[in-house]
């Protein structure tokens, strides 16, 4: 819900890094920015020293050691060099190649566990009711019973099996969450890429509009949008998705801004590339890392937001179960069946935990710094 704003809407790398601090006017110091100084040499050195630890590979070295080094990095930049003057990677630090990241993830047993659980949940919610005799709408006279062998999580006010309803409730949660994250990602990345690459007044206007959107907590925003559009599955996706568009736009834009001045982007222009070519082939693949991380984290928060909206009575129509709605009803029967609301909550926690940890592992594999600054540097 709302406070979840904290993580997904502020979290990923350097969203503020490339931007001037409040009150600080961007000072055009061209040589500082683009020109080589003797000092940069020194910056480059420690970086090379730290090669085995910073997740860079060298002459086909196998990546077993990498994970360790990168774990350390996630612990707060431990992977940075030990020696003199070794500061962090430059703001525009570039993603490691995708191939290496996938290999790292494929060897990560936490990724196996998290992905496994999520796949299990998704498959269970869609497939299990088809193959086994599980009907979330089947009513019985045994209402509001506690957990038992036949009803693991007890029954609801219509005597329906809560375990089945929790399982099937995963459908709406996952659909809405991934739909919203996808919507936000596509819209946000396009806005961020164009705004960051071309800058100018359009960029300023777009960022101002997004600031206003960002000012509203996502539950509030979703409430308003649904109040306007009406309650339907697709509208729910849009309503939640819109709240996350600014985050994706900011993450993308920050990455693009940092990359714009990177030599390999300048080199692409120097080779006579057109802007769309540079954006699609050179810039986009290199900002993808934080975006992917943001996608996973956004999905996690969107699960919570969709449950919050369900709790407020906005969600799938009644016979279809949703975790939020179950918790809302549970509040009315606290005295009759205290366990009623516990089960959907646990399902929710497990799902969010999996997504969140998955996001963390992807972030580690990509070497994206978890920026403490968050939105701090905006405007």
């Amino acid at each position: 819900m709302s406070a979840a704003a904290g993580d997904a809407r502020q979290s990923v790398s350097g969203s503020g890094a490339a931007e001037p601090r409040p009150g600080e006017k961007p000072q055009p110091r061209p040589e500082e920015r683009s020109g080589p100084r003797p000092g940069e040499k020194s910056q480059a050195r420690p970086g090379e020293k730290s090669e085995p630890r910073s997740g860079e590979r060298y002459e086909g070295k196998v990546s077993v050691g990498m994970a360790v080094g990168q774990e350390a990095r996630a612990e707060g930049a431990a992977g940075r060099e030990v020696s003199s003057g070794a500061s962090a990677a430059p703001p525009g630090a570039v993603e490691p190649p995708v191939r290496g990241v996938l290999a790292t993830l494929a060897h990560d047993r936490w990724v196996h566990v998290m992905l496994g659980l999520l796949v299990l949940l998704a498959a269970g919610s869609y497939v299990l009711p088809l193959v086994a005799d599980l009907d979330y709408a089947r009513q019985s006279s045994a209402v509001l019973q506690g957990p038992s062998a036949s009803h693991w999580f007890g029954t609801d006010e219509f005597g329906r099996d809560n375990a089945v309803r929790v399982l099937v409730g995963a459908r709406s949660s996952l659909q809405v969450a991934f739909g919203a994250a996808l919507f936000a990602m596509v819209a946000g990345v396009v806005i961020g890429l164009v705004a960051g690459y071309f800058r100018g007044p359009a960029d300023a206007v777009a960022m101002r509009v997004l600031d206003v959107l960002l000012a509203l907590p996502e539950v509030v925003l979703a409430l308003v949008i649904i109040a306007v559009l009406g309650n339907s599955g697709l509208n729910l996706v849009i309503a939640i998705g819109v709240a996350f568009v600014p985050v994706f736009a900011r993450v993308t834009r920050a990455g693009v801004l940092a990359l714009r001045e990177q030599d390999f982007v300048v080199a692409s222009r120097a080779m006579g590339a057109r802007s769309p070519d540079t954006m699609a082939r050179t810039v986009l693949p290199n900002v993808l890392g934080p975006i992917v991380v943001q996608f996973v984290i956004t999905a996690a928060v969107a699960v919570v937001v969709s449950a919050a909206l369900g709790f407020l009575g906005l969600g799938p129509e009644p016979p279809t179960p949703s975790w939020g709605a179950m918790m809302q009803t549970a509040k009315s029967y606290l005295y009759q069946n205290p366990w009623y609301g516990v089960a959907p909550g646990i399902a929710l926690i497990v799902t969010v935990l999996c997504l969140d940890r998955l996001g963390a592992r992807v972030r580690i594999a990509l070497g994206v710094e978890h920026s403490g600054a968050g939105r701090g540097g905006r405007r």
Partner: protein
Amino acid sequence: MSLRSAVPVLGGAPDPCDGPGSPAPLLSIEDLRVAFGGGDQAVAAVRGVSYEVYPGETLGVVGESGSGKSVTVMAALGLLTTATAATVTGRVLFEGQDLLAMSAPQRRRVLGRDIAMVFQDPVSALNPVQRIGDQIAEMIRLHEPGVSRGDARRRAVALLEMVGVPHPGVRARQYPHEFSGGMCQRAVIALAIANRPKVLIADEPTTAVDVSVQAQLLEVLRTAARETGAATVLISHDMGVVAEMADRVCVMYGGRVVETGPLARVFGHPRHPYTEGLLACIPRLGDPVARLTPIPGQPPTPYLLGKGCAFAPRCAHRSGREVCLGERPELVVVDGEGRGGVAAACHFLAEREVPGLRQAPPAAAASASASASAASAVVSSPAASAVSSSDSAVSSPAAGGEGREGGGALLEVRELSKEYPMRSGLLGRRTGAVRAVRGLSLVVRPGETVGLVGESGCGKSTTARLLMRLEEPTSGSVVFDGEEVTGASAGRLRELRRRMAMVFQDPKASLNPQLSVGANVAEPLRLAGGWSRPARRERVAELFDQVGLARHHLERRPSELSGGQRQRVAIARALALRPKLVIMDEPVSALDVSVQAQVLNLLADLKAELGLAYLFVSHDLSVVRHVSDRVAVMYLGRIVELAGRDDIFERPRHPYTQALLRSVPSAEVEVARRGRRAPLQGDPPSPLNPPEGCSFRSRCPLAEEACGREVPLLRVHDGLPGEVACHLAGAGGTGAAGGPAALSAGAGW
């Protein structure tokens, strides 16, 4: 030894070359080992390092990146960042006590009081939210709790004054961001000497600054050491800096000391093949050679080191012998004892003592003979000057005809300017402008190399970008190959950009990390159109051969290659469309010296083979001298001197050029020992607000009132070769004579 007398600055210190019987070392590191990570994945960054520092001396520790020189001291002082799981073993004895075995509170009493550090990056080494004076005062009060706050502050101001910070009273109340890089480093030095430490450890103290500031800082360091009587450990990758400062040196490679001994003996007569190679591969300002002698291969990475000698894979002397790979050579004393002794770690030291087998480069041989006849090591060694003059005679035919008019221009730049507007306030009103490039004119002819040198902030890189219109010039024109670049349509511009090419400073940053290096090289071909896939593949393979990369590297990612290999890839990419002009923006600055030489040789070969013209932008004068036919010296957005290579370096006429040349440290002991005095004071002025008239006026030792009235034009004076922008250049009638001559006297190579 007479060397000492040539270095009056260090006069107060006891002679370090006394040989046996000298006092006990102040700080000695014994068999220090540092490993990062644990278990099977442990990476040994330092693999058994021992060295010691004696009272009053300066020990220079040299090595390339990855040699472990910095990690060694950080580990010795317990300053390795805690989050890194590092295992440190060995002993670090200070006045007989082992720092590593001490309790933390005990060690804290030594740190800052007896042993103090000067760090590489001074700006980040200072706490950004604490006033400079308070940071120094904290250092004092930590070790002398009795000192009052006010007294500590007053002492801080005195210290700042001592290290040459102007207006120390005001500056002490400022924050680090209000200091320039050079001033920050002075503050850090003031901080370090606050408690009159017995050992001062400076870790690459001048790497982050320009040469003119470097010269000032080294002088400050010398003063600081002299005033406090501290022994100094100077860690640097720069042979010139070490040659200038150190009494004894310690050469590190692959986490070990490979050679150690008194400076003149080690640099004059290197025993270890690595030391020898390192000295041979650096381009020398005073002693240009037609071709550098690079060390083949790449610097080692700690986790790829085997059991044997770390240098074995690159060693010219090994000639395939197995023992080098299988067995670690110990550091053995070859000559002399104790402090004066030379020790080296090579299996074949004895062999190398046979004169016939040594392949000393002429420079090293010359200086070796010079130092052997110790008496000659005074201000102008006849041997050294003989060598340099004969060399310049050799290289002058190549430079013949340069600097003369004539021949169609490949690139013609006229009155090029670039301003970056400064905006402020609510409406972004324009309140001023950073004038990065101010009316620059330059011609590059087919097949020639024009060097563009200057300190950071002088606009040289901006110029490089303006030429390809990667940034829009504010005014002026650029004509390339008969066609106007400024004012070309977007389509024409893309077409033009394909006929010139650019190589950037950091190859790690200039290659698209998501593409294989082969694909990176193929990018310009793809963008140009008209190249089928097989044609591209064939061309890329051809380019790989040309720049000396193996074809099996084609599918690698840039991150899988080393720095030197990456720069080769970047060069291959630049050559893909057979350009006539390649703009090089500091192409070797990010590389280790041993690799630098390889790339410079490659550039020379390619130029000869393909008839390329280069515009070579660099801050490194020695490199520029090595590669250029003509040289333009920039200061604050303007060219102040433009002349043939030898004219600029042998007979500099602009006071700035002269000062710049004097600022460069030299790895040749005699030259270095002449006691380079910082020829320029202060930092370069801000391009936001350059001085009226001649921009160099504010730092020029010869400036007269008239200099402020008018901007000096770049023009020929008195029919001498080259063009100078100085009101005083023609005054003495002979340019280099007269006033400026006084300055250049010390620079007579």
